[in-house]
């Protein structure tokens, strides 16, 4: 009885936190102990129902953010089968859970089958209706209406023994229509949308094993990753964009390759010392051909008949090594040292050949090279002075060398290879204090300071520091927490300044005094402001300027759960508001942004929801829920607002048999 009560309590806790998507229903149904069938115990539940949605406003944006639509669904299911004596004939445990099967935009199935000590098999299958209306600032280009399917299979023979064999397989695919763009016929030519039929697949095969002797564990993994993309681009009818016209366009670009990989890991764990060494080598290679034909007139009205042929391969061997050594000679002191090496070189053998079929002329160009090597070493020590007070501190040094060979002139104008090398060194230190003045109360304070003498990008970390603190109070029924985190990075150079400041403030509370009542609330304020030097051309004039970005995000979550006899009620509210720089400009003006006006994107995203679940029978529940989404922008990034309001909800039956 006590365990049943607890399981109901746990169910209530789950109902409390699961507020972001209204369905499936997290309430428990049926006996938590399940039914005995032969030598097995079965616990199951299925939730079937109808999901509805009514959307007013920008459907594309709704599909990008939320995407729940109408229809009958298997909203969720859970099945566990356990052998009662741990000696099942073929298996001892099956766990199967599903989500959204039937046509939800987010679907998944998770399966585990295992026989104690003999084997374990895990499968995860997922489907995502990946929709994107296109970048608003890019005139809606790069729209995607695709399906992504992912699956992972892992089989382990002898999972608990000293010798085990592992086999794995993963597959990922993305298919569906998309819009891309092409710019023709020279640097000032016009842009045309082109249709893409996206066809991408990746298959990964894994085989490996683990062995253990004298406390050392050796893991070896061999993997082969095969990727191919056969996405054709085409023009759907002749078009004109400004002065350039395009009467025909097609592009075929098959891109196939594989990444064979080795990973070897040796580790040993004991109370006094531990080591973990890893080496990996991935020899990525892709072969490709591109054939692009464009017919039309250029911006001067001259007829163009251009064909571009590219063939070759790209290689990127990556070798990495990590070695970690730690000592914990007593209960109070610990010392950890980590050394890492990362080396990759991107190499290729691409020949770019551009034909002007009308003039029977051709241009030929070759590839570029990019290589990177990073060596890092860090040491960190921790000392626990008393049961309630501990310190830690550490130092890290990283050195990076980036080498490249690149061209000096635009493609087709006769490339000349130039070799460059850039080196940078980072020194950083970390420190922290941990306090536990009372058993349920913990206080963590930490900080990090870093100096990089030559970061690669103006927005990379150069002179940065992080400060953070977290106070947490947790008992069986109450959890209170507040935290602050600050990240500042300042780069100052002769022509440009980049300064980024981020501050996060959070507070959260949850209270579950009884099984029938629970309360959860959280608030976070995420602040970012950046100032970056920019340079751009305006009417052939190089113009220096500043890009200023301000984001002040206020987010809140509130949830309450009540158990009223046979009925369980959940109500919640989620708020996201970006107040930007405080002034809610009605019009977004890119020209003003280029001139240094603060760039902000104030918006509101509100999501109230409510759910009612009634236990009709010990094995049946009826559920109904409503979730409202309200998205409102204060500025229109490309002249049009993407606002929407959506009522979504469901009615379902949750049953167990």
């Amino acid at each position, binding site marked *: 009885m006590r365990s049943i009560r607890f399981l109901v309590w746990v169910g209530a806790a789950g109902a409390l936190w699961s507020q972001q998507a209204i369905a499936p229903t997290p309430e428990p149904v049926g006996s938590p102990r399940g039914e005995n069938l032969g030598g097995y115990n079965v616990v199951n539940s299925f939730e079937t129902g109808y999901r509805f949605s009514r959307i007013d406003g920008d459907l594309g944006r709704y599909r990008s953010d939320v995407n729940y639509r109408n229809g009958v669904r298997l909203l969720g299911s859970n099945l566990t089968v356990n052998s009662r004596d741990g000696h099942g004939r073929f298996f001892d445990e099956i766990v199967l859970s599903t989500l959204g099967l039937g046509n939800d935009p987010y679907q998944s199935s998770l399966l585990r089958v295992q026989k104690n000590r003999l084997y374990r098999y895990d499968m995860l299958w997922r489907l995502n209706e990946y929709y994107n209306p296109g970048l608003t600032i890019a005139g809606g280009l790069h729209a995607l209406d695709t399906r992504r399917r992912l699956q992972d299979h892992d089989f382990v023979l002898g999972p608990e023994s000293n010798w085990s064999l592992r086999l794995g397989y993963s597959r990922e695919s993305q298919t569906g229509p998309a819009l891309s763009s092409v710019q023709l016929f020279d640097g000032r030519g016009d842009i045309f949308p082109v249709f893409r039929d996206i066809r991408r697949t990746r298959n990964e095969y894994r085989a490996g094993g683990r062995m253990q002797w004298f406390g050392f564990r050796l893991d070896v993994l061999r993997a082969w990753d095969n990727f191919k993309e056969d996405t054709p681009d085409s023009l759907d009818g002749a078009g004109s964009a400004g002065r350039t016209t395009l009467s025909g366009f097609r592009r075929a670009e098959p891109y196939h390759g594989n990444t064979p990989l080795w990973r070897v890991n040796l580790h040993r764990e004991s109370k006094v010392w531990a080591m973990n060494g890893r080496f990996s080598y991935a020899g990525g290679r892709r072969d490709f051909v591109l054939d692009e034909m464009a017919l039309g007139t250029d911006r001067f009205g001259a007829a163009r008949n251009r064909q571009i042929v590219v063939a070759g391969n790209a290689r990127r061997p990556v070798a990495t090594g990590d070695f970690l050594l730690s000592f914990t000679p007593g209960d109070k002191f610990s010392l950890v040292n980590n050394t890492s090496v990362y080396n990759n070189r991107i190499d290729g053998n691409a020949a770019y050949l551009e034909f002007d079929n009308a003039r029977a002329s051709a241009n030929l160009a070759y590839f570029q090279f990019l290589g990177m090597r990073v060596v890092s070493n860090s040491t960190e020590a921790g000392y626990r002075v008393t049961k309630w007070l501990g310190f830690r501190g550490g130092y890290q040094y990283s050195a990076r060398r980036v080498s490249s060979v690149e061209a000096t002139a635009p493609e087709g104008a006769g490339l000349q290879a130039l070799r460059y090398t850039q080196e940078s060194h980072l020194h950083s230190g970390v420190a922290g204090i941990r306090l536990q003045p009372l058993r349920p109360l913990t206080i963590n304070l930490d900080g990090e300071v870093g100096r990089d003498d030559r970061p690669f990008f103006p927005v990379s970390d150069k002179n940065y520091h992080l400060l953070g603190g977290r106070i947490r109070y947790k008992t069986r029924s109450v959890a209170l*927490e507040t935290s602050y985190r600050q990240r500042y990075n300042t780069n100052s150079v002769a022509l440009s300044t980049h300064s980024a400041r981020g501050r996060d403030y959070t507070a959260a509370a949850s209270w579950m005094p009884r099984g029938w009542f629970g309360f959860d609330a959280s608030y976070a304020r995420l602040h970012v402001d950046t100032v970056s030097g920019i340079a751009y051309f305006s009417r052939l004039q190089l113009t220096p300027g500043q890009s200023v970005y301000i984001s002040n995000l206020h987010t809140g979550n509130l949830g309450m759960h009540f158990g009223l006899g046979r009925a369980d009620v959940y109500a919640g509210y989620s708020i996201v508001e970006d107040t930007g720089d405080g002034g809610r400009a009605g019009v977004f003006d890119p020209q003003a942004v280029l001139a240094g006006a603060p760039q902000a994107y104030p918006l509101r995203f509100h999501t109230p929801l409510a759910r009612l679940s009634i236990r009709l029978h010990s094995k049946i529940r009826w559920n109904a829920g409503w979730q409202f989404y309200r998205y409102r922008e204060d500025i229109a990034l490309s002249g049009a607002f993407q606002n929407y309001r959506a009522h979504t909800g469901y009615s379902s039956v949750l049953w167990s048999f």
Partner: protein
Amino acid sequence: MLALLLLASAAGAGPAPGPAGYVGSNACKTCHADLWLNFYKNPHYKSIASGLEPPERTGCEGCHGPGGAHVEARGGKTTIARAFSLLRPAQVLDACLACHAKDLSRANIRRSEHTRAGVACSSCHSIHKAQAPRFLLARKQAELCYGCHSAVRAQFSMPSKHRVNEGFMQCTDCHNPHGAMAPTWRMGARPRMVEQALGNEEPCLKCHSDKRGPFVFEHPSVRVDGCEACHFPHGSTNPRLLRRPVVFSVCLECHNGAGNFGRQGDGIRTQSASHNMADPRYRNCTACHARIHGSNSSEFFLR
């Protein structure tokens, strides 16, 4: 209850403590029937089912230590050799790693940020009262993480986000809560606890394999500073998780020609003079530079 008390009394008088005070799990189930009834569903039950493990690795005493003193005292939390609610985080870790140290995914757990912050195994896993049977999690995974990481919870509430709240993804798709190797594709030790893809690459590439390359012409930011150079990984109010609401800001903040940066050390090259930002069509950088993550046929990522 009376029957249970009588049984408990009988149990107290019954099994004599074995070597080093081990009494076996049968003694425990007399009083802790509620835990025992469902224990056969617990992955730890296999230590009992096999019958091959020594007492210190079998059943209740495998985790809680020898129960002789607890039985003799007829209960009491303080008489349990290892009562997890009374243990310090390091002691909890020691107890669990006695068996669970062999897995590669936990090879760095003693050095992890969680361990340093006093987050013990029992903070996330509930052995007897798990809500998620797989991995014996005390709650659903995202909810466990949100319990401490409110800022991350806020990021996943944004309009543009990875679908964690919808159940399509899990935090562990990208992170290893037990500790991970340093993210060597970057200079600093951050981001911490990120589970690399095979070959020590960013975890983003596990799903976004079309961005992985290799490409003959790689956008260096993808390789050198990683995806976070342009994107927020959790969620953002900006489209496509971008760091700025407009694309040209993302590009121009690096492509400004400022000295000391870039491969040549004399700046990331500025846009060509043929670009006229006074003309709106030149503000849509990725309309022309459509293959911004990498290209095999255009060093300017045009195709």
